[in-house]
């Protein structure tokens, strides 16, 4: 466990479909890997691309975004607007070097507990195969407490 790389995944999910779908997976006791951490938002339309950047800044190796199927949005059109936003953002990120394994998308309805499990495990496996996001972690170094003085002398 220690020596094996375990990816850290952030999942932004909408309250009405995917979060509830994940609940269903739980109620149906469908086992899944423990690498993902869910952040609940009312609707995929609420998810700002900066959330994804922030997630990587917080050391995520992969990000999953999931909501209601087109047409099922609890708020009519939130996911339609989101879908456009993602098409643009995903292409941008791919262009600057964050490939599609690190940022994945899915539609999971409240009744798709099984699908949720396969999606989550799928993301975890593919990111595990890709390895840690060292390039981004390097970018964060400047902000982190320098290791040399890690336990070191408190300043003045």
């Amino acid at each position, binding site marked *: 466990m220690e020596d094996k790389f375990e990816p850290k995944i952030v999942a932004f999910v909408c309250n009405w479909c995917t979060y509830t779908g994940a609940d269903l997976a739980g109620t149906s006791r469908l086992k899944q890997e423990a690498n993902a951490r869910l952040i609940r938002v009312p609707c995929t339309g609420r998810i700002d691309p900066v959330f994804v950047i922030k997630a990587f800044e917080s050391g995520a190796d992969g990000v999953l975004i999931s909501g209601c199927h087109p047409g099922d949005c609890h708020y009519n059109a939130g996911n339609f607007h989101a879908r456009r936003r993602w098409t643009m953002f995903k292409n*941008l990120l791919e262009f600057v070097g964050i490939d599609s394994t690190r940022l994945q998308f899915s539609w999971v309805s409240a009744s798709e507990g099984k699908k949720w499990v396969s999606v989550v495990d799928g993301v975890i496996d593919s990111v595990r195969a890709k390895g840690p996001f060292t390039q981004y972690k390097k970018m964060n170094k400047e902000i982190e407490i320098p290791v040399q003085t890690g336990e070191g002398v408190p300043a003045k």
Partner: protein
Amino acid sequence: MNELKQTCKDVLTEKKARLIIGYSEDKNKRVKPFIARTPEDAEKFVFNHHAVNNLAVYISRFKNNFEGKIGIVVKGCDLKAVTALIQESQVKRDDLYIIGVNCSGVVREIDKEFSKDNSQIKCKYCQTKTPAYFDAIAEESKEFELTVDDQQELMTKIEKMSAEEKLDFWNEQFEKCIKCYACRQVCPMCYCEQCIAEKSEPQWIDSSATARGSFAWNTIRAFHMAGRCIGCHECERACPMDIPLTLLTRKMGMVASSEFGYRHGMSIDEPTLIGSYSTSDKEDFIK
């Protein structure tokens, strides 16, 4: 040339506009933005290959303050910014007096003469030498041939790279960034009173010019341009650190047109890319 001066003079004399944003020449023959308020001022107006600035950026200065129209001298490419500003309700068409100029290309390095090689990238594939609409038009068109769009090569080169190579490439670029925000300030579409980069509590983007701060700023800026950039390339021109910013915005533009057949700033009443949707938008990337 006189035609432009004359047109602007008339506009100001007949009070068709209370001022005109245009170009003048300083004593070192450098062309720069200039605001004329009197017919006499209009004498100072010039237009030539060195009139690089996209003057639309000044429009938001007068936002909600239109006692009398604002006159503005625009090239075909700059007009797209004006259109976009109208689309995004930053200004009403009626509050502007648009003086179009036929452009025959502008320089890349301002202290050198205009030539095939010393021309802005955008000029190399220019489709809008003549403004699409205007209240008055000055400057008869001089022909100029489009040369090879050398940015494409670099674009495809990057697209061919592996994800890791891309990220390395861009980090190398972004690490040059000093967060002077020249890219933002020259951008006619960056009219926000409070930029997302200035939004604290919570802090959206690190204000430090660190690797992560610069990466976040430059990518998010590019995203905010998604479907909004009108391709005047002012950001790249203004960048003191020579970061190839237009690669990003242009990429966004390419995606917008390839995925949604959309180009910003083409029509005043067209719905904007972000803000509209079609139930049949592509979603092959969504599981």
